């Protein structure tokens, strides 16, 4: 899942008044498809377990490693567990890890990003350095080592570890946006009228960063889902729990490939890829909602998904981060 995590675009345009209640039909097809896929997965995570035909963990040696049939729509594992039931339970657990970690990471990125951007000076220097250091250290090897020391860690510790390592991307863009908003006239005007810093942050600056925060949240969900599936696939957290990654772990462990039990390892992989694609497409939509330039261009010259504006030297480039780019 390499270059998947993209930094959401730092909107350095003047914060045009956000248009509320943008009609669904104004969104591009991509965004609609993305929202649809994500909605489908959320519904499945919430209500799916109600429709589980069997207990996902219950074993039945009689029908072990059976191909899809009317009794077992997606076949069974080599222990006779129902694949469809596992898929439904696994989707819920995987999405829970993704959303849980993203909530923690986004909260941290708002705190770090706003503090650095708003206070500036040494706060900015120190926090940016910290952010970039966390950003540049390879996360997966670190996670593998950490979880290697925490054998059989459950879902909570996974959420915590992923959340604590997942904030720097968001913090970077929020900082850049705060830095740029801080000097805008409307913030200066509010400051002149004697508003407190807290009010400036929560009522003037934060509302203008909502789309940025939402985009950062969605890509953090993407990162957390991808990483947690990978870690579960490696058997690095409780292998008895139900998740999409654990399904792949057992499929690999029980040589599903060699017995040609495609119905066992293909569905969880497709689900992860679909969920990931849905999140990426949803992010295009959020960009369009939050950045009017993208939406205005939605006609003949549509520039959906545009991420980078190389011609704009943004405040990020003042202290070049790990990538060291004007973005």
């Amino acid at each position, binding site marked *: 899942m390499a270059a998947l995590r993209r930094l959401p675009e730092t909107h350095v345009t003047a914060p045009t008044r956000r248009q509320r209640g943008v009609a669904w039909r104004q969104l591009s097809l991509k965004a609609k498809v993305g929202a649809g896929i994500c909605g489908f997965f959320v519904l499945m995570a919430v209500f799916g377990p109600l429709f589980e035909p069997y207990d996902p963990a219950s074993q039945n040696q009689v029908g072990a490693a059976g191909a899809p049939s009317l009794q077992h729509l997606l076949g069974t594992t080599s222990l006779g567990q129902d694949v469809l039931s596992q898929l439904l339970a696994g989707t819920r657990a995987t999405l829970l890890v993704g959303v849980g970690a993203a909530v923690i990471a986004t909260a941290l990125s708002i705190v770090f990003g706003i503090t650095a951007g708003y206070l500036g000076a040494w706060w900015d220097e120190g926090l940016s350095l910290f952010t970039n*250091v966390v950003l540049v*250290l390879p996360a997966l090897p670190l996670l*593998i080592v950490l979880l290697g020391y925490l054998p059989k860690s459950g879902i909570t510790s996974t959420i915590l570890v992923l959340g604590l390592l997942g904030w720097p991307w968001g913090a970077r863009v929020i900082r850049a946006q705060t830095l740029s908003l801080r000097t805008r006239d409307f913030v200066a005007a509010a400051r002149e009228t004697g508003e407190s810093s807290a009010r400036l942050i929560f009522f003037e600056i934060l509302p203008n960063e909502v789309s940025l925060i939402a985009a950062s949240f969605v890509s953090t969900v993407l990162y957390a889902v991808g990483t947690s599936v990978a870690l579960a696939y490696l058997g690095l957290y409780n292998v008895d729990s139900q998740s999409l990654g654990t399904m792949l772990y057992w499929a690999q462990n029980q040589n599903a490939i060699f017995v040609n039990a495609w119905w066992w390892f293909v569905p969880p992989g497709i689900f992860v890829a679909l969920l990931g694609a849905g999140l990426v497409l949803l992010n295009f939509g959020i960009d369009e909602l939050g950045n009017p330039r993208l939406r205005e261009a939605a006609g003949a010259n549509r520039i959906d998904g545009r991420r980078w504006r190389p011609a704009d030297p943004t405040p990020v480039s003042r202290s070049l981060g790990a990538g060291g780019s004007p973005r």
Partner: protein
Amino acid sequence: MRFFARRLVFYFVAAWAAVTINFVIPRLMPGNPAESLFQSMQNAQPGELKAIEAEFGVGHDGSALHQYGQYLANLLHGNLGHSVILSAQVSTVIGQTLPWTLVLVGSATVISFFTGTLLGILAAWRRGGWLDRVLPGLTFIQAMPYFFLALLLVDGLAMHLHWFPEQQGYSQGLVPGWHASFIASAIYHSILPAITILVTTMAGWMLQMRNVMITTIGEDYVLAAQAKGLSPRRVVMAYAARNAVLPQLAGFGLALGFVVSGALLMEIGFSYPGVGLTLYNAVLSEDYPTMQGIFLVIALVVLLANLIMDAAYVLADPRARSREAR
């Protein structure tokens, strides 16, 4: 020069952080790796616990500060500790496995970067063409977990069609060395793993390049170049792409962390004899010195690659130099 000074300070701090995390993690974690190893050893003598603890550096002799100093001194001498499980120096183990990863992942990443960037230019140039239209579909492939793609490739191309070997880095029975049969075998075995990296990373470069290109093509100077009557190829490559590639270069360093993560998973999927597989085996066998040594080496290699990319970026973008020269 101020730019370089700042970057050097940054990399110094980052390297220090990696080294220190590596020192702190084992000391924060519950339990003691030496004890777990001691318990797993058959007919171990009671005195050996002390020896193992000393080997892991988790013994209780000396203050934490003293241990830290010891640890740093060891690192400076290239001593990453001794793996009891593999009965070898960790540095030797890494020396044997790192080349596999560097060659495969390095070349696949460079190919992916160049091909993806070129395809991105094409997609932006021929706006609305077939290449441009398949792009949203690529997000699906891009979102596919590395190891899952590895599973599919092994299942289809190796298990069913027997086009490629399923596992390992070279055929069994061959002695690694610089002779034709070994090199041919190694290349043959690296094709599927390389395809996995290419397929999952190329779409990212392509999407990004296309998006930047579309913005750049709309710039006035590109219009001016067209008005001058330059050939379309020259306008696209020398005017638009020349500038649009800058964010690509800048993103390269950041994306590298993900490439490394993906490569670890790919290696495990293919049982490819690189550092990823070694790290995985170390975790499974609770081989803590190897685990930590590999983490440290991966972190330092990523930092080094970032440093090189920074230098390349400054060479490519004069603005980065002048802006920082204030």
